[in-house]
């Protein structure tokens, strides 16, 4: 029965991604959620089981309450949102003209430019962050150049500041902004811009009336691709930021490996996830809503 095999195959094909998500996302998430509801103990594993010896359910919201009461966490979350947000905005401001330029370049030049965007990925991420340490430190390339030019008398402290984290985030995630923007700008019909100009819009006006709204999908995709990993970034704040520059990724790491407070670390992770997921879901809702009203 060919139809029957068709149906079976269809189910199998659909099942694969679901199975993947179940095993590698939902299951770990459930484990983290479970840990976040436990109490820390000095044992292996370092948290209380969800069912105690008598088989009774034993969960606690203490970890979440602690996150709410201790100002440090709220402050760290806010700071992470701020730094990741600022890096996202700067990536957009730098990435949009880059993507625009690439999309409008001659085909031969275009593939070369795209290659240049992807090229940094061929070098280890860690090495590239180390390179920034070399550039930003007090006797690094930037300070030396500024002093040689006579613009400053003594080195400007850039390493181990929020500024260094901001630069590091922007640099590392810029390609993730450029690529989706390039994809939307490249398939845009250039006649549309000419049509806008023909109908009385200056070049700038035509950009805001036509190019920008039509690039929206790329802007949103790029911003999410930069903002989400930047929020949870650990390596950049650890290497470039000072001891004061606590970001949420760093806190998460410290709770797990330094304090060995797994339940608290798990709840930090859950709250981070909520902070990221809620805005995305709301954005998607508003988009589908918009599409429906338009239809």
């Amino acid at each position, binding site marked *: 029965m060919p139809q029957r095999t068709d149906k079976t195959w269809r189910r199998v094909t659909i099942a694969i991604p679901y199975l993947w998500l179940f095993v590698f996302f939902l299951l770990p998430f459930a484990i983290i959620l479970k840990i976040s509801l436990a109490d820390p103990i000095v044992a292996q594993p370092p948290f209380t089981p969800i069912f105690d010896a008598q088989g009774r359910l034993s969960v606690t919201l203490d970890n979440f309450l602690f996150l709410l009461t201790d100002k440090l966490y709220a402050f760290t979350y806010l700071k992470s949102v701020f730094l990741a947000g600022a890096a996202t905005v700067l990536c957009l401001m730098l990435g949009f003209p880059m993507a625009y330029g690439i999309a409008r370049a001659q085909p031969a030049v275009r593939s070369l430019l795209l290659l240049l965007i992807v090229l940094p990925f061929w070098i280890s991420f860690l090495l590239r962050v180390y390179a920034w340490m070399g550039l930003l430190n007090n006797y690094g390339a930037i300070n030396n150049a500024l002093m040689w030019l006579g613009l400053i008398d003594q080195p400007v402290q850039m390493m181990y500041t929020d500024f260094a984290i901001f630069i590091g985030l922007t640099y590392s995630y810029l390609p993730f902004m450029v690529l989706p923007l390039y994809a939307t700008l490249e398939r845009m019909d250039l006649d549309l811009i000419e049509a*806008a100009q*023909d109908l*009385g819009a200056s070049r700038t006006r035509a950009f805001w009336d036509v190019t920008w709204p039509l690039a929206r999908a790329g802007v949103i995709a790029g911003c999410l691709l930069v903002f989400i990993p930047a929020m949870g970034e650990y390596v950049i704040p650890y290497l470039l930021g000072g001891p004061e520059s606590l970001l949420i990724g760093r806190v998460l790491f410290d709770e797990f490996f330094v304090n060995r407070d797994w339940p608290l670390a798990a709840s930090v992770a859950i709250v981070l996830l909520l902070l990221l997921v809620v805005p995305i879901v709301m954005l998607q809702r508003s988009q589908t809503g918009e599409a429906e009203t338009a239809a």
Partner: protein
Amino acid sequence: MTDPTKPADFIRIRNVSKHFGDFVAVDGVNLDIGKSELFSILGGSGCGKSTLLRMMAGFETPTSGTIEIDGVDVTNQPPYERPVNMMFQSYAIFPHMNVEKNIAYGLRKEGIAKQEIIKRVDDVVGLVQLGDFRKRRPDQLSGGQRQRVALARALIKRPKVLLLDEPLAALDKKLREHTQFELMNIQDELGVTFVVVTHDQEEAMTLSTRIAVMNEGRFLQVGTPKEIYEYPNSRFVADFIGTINTFEGTVSRIDDNAMSVDCPELGGDVRALIDDNTHVNVGQQVCIAVRPEKIFISFEEPEDHEGVRAHGVVDDFGYFGNLSLYRIRLESGRTIQVSWQNQRRSAKRFVEWEDKVWVSWRPRSAVVIKGES
């Protein structure tokens, strides 16, 4: 139709050239277009017609030369300052705006009062019959509707000149014929000067008051559709517009208003008329060109001894409903095309394959084109 007494200088194109690197897209073109004309620029792809149109719209700057519209030199004006609007071949309808917003876009950029915009949108939507589609998104429109949105969006600006780039190329055949007449009616009603760029000679013939035939960046001939069709001035124009049979020959004798041309392919001397435009000398190479519909087929030898005649065999024919097309192989070996109106309703064929027939035409039906191929 244009009034021939009015000077045709609403648009004045003077010595306009456009070079892209080494490539010369438009090569020193001169053209005058009158007010309220429906003017077509006709040519194959890459002949420079679109570049010329884009220079009128302001998307390209001429390498040299000037373009004047209604007495104002617009050569270096940006597109948004020109009293000109363009309908793009792709229609270029803004996909993120509904029909109404697309149409109103140009007026909003002019900063016109809201009430006035609403009124003018109403008018133009009525003109192109889009009333039921005002709130539709572009992706919910058919090809014909998109074409009308593009037309309305350009017309609402009340341009002095409307430029149309292949306006009907994206439509299917039936819709194209219908839209063609719609365009002509709208043009007639509004009196706006239309400049159409097209590769479709039929479209140019039916639409236009005048046509310019373009090739390799130059105009070969500018004239009314009738002039272009009946009096082509070159082999290229004759070939490009419709079908034509051409025969190489040498002028052998010149009388008052006629000449004899020795055409080996027609088996000797044939007669042709001399009109005001043909100044030829004995011994000059010319080309006799005659349209398929101007040739007669008969079984008996035609009696008119002035006429051109040749004997041949029916090689092939095609039935097209309203007319039939015959390919007849002459005794010289040359094949010519003859078309015949199917006036009589009959299942029986007029001629059959391998029938021996005479083809003939009157001397005045043929055009004499000077110069070699």
